[in-house]
């Protein structure tokens, strides 16, 4: 069985301008372009869900909250309340806000919500520092991978939302080989970014 992510809202048709130079997705989304919203959603939704998961939100709830966050953003755009669309940061902030709101109501377990503002800020700072160190280690490991491994890895991550099949066509390898490479590289990286709880 397959699940294809689509935005929950029924959107207006894409705006005209097919022969014009294509504007960045964010600009088109701000103008109400449905296809742009769909593309942004497919590109960044995984990151939004990951942030929620990383903060201890239950997986199914995280997916729901992420969808709701996108819905809220689109509604704001329709009400002309969005002036700047910086993604995925804005979607992540919206999702965290929704998670915090639900946690206050007791619907969601959200590990940072109970902390005071100072403690939360300190925790975030420590987390950022730990992440920076892990990021450096991850990059160092990535540098030791073969050229083809790096090519596949970057092709996958540089295009959020791209499937292994699309990347396989792009890099000229079989889907199975792409999956195998991803598994190998991720295993190496996972070992060095082993979680350091703060």
């Amino acid at each position, binding site marked *: 069985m397959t699940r294809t992510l689509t935005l929950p809202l029924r959107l207006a048709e894409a705006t005209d301008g097919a022969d014009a130079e294509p504007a960045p997705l964010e600009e088109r989304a701000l103008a109400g372009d449905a296809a742009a919203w769909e593309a942004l959603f497919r590109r960044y*939704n995984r990151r939004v869900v990951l942030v929620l998961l990383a903060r201890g939100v*239950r*997986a199914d709830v995280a997916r729901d909250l992420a969808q709701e966050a996108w819905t809220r953003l689109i509604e704001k755009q329709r009400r002309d309340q969005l002036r700047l669309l910086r993604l995925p940061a804005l979607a992540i902030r919206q999702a965290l806000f929704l998670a915090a709101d639900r946690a206050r109501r007791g619907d969601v377990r959200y590990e940072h919500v109970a902390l005071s503002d100072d403690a939360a800020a300190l925790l975030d700072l420590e987390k950022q520092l730990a992440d920076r160190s892990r990021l450096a280690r*991850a990059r160092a490991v990535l540098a030791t991978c073969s050229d083809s491994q790096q090519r596949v890895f970057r092709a996958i991550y540089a295009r959020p939302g791209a499937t292994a099949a699309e990347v396989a066509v792009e890099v000229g390898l079989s889907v199975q080989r792409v999956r195998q490479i991803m*598994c190998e590289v991720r*295993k190496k*990286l996972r070992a060095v970014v082993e979680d350091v709880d703060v």
Partner: protein
Amino acid sequence: MSDCLTASELAWYVTDGLSPVVCDLERADRIEAHAAGCADCAGALAAEARAELVIDAAATAEPLALPRRRAAWLGALAAVAGIVLVVFIGRAVAGDRPPPRTATAADSTPADAGIGALAVDGDILDPDVGTN
């Protein structure tokens, strides 16, 4: 719990399981359902998500940094090799070139008298040329 999530299942969930097109929906649902009821696996899933965010950042923060650095090194090496080659060829050509001949009376014709005169002028700069 005996059927706790494996490392590969956790990895699959935060990569393929959250992609826009999930091919194995049953697997994703099973992982979510298990993590919802198992605190250990929920914690492991949160840790996997944190690791995935770091991996994601490592891959996307400087997408072309490594190839670019390697390309820069290769470019610098190629430039140095090119300079060395040009100097080498230049010296080789200069070394093979016969020294300017000293004009002799036999060579001289009224037409090239001017050229002979130039060669003779050159000898002034290099006193060895034309001598035995």
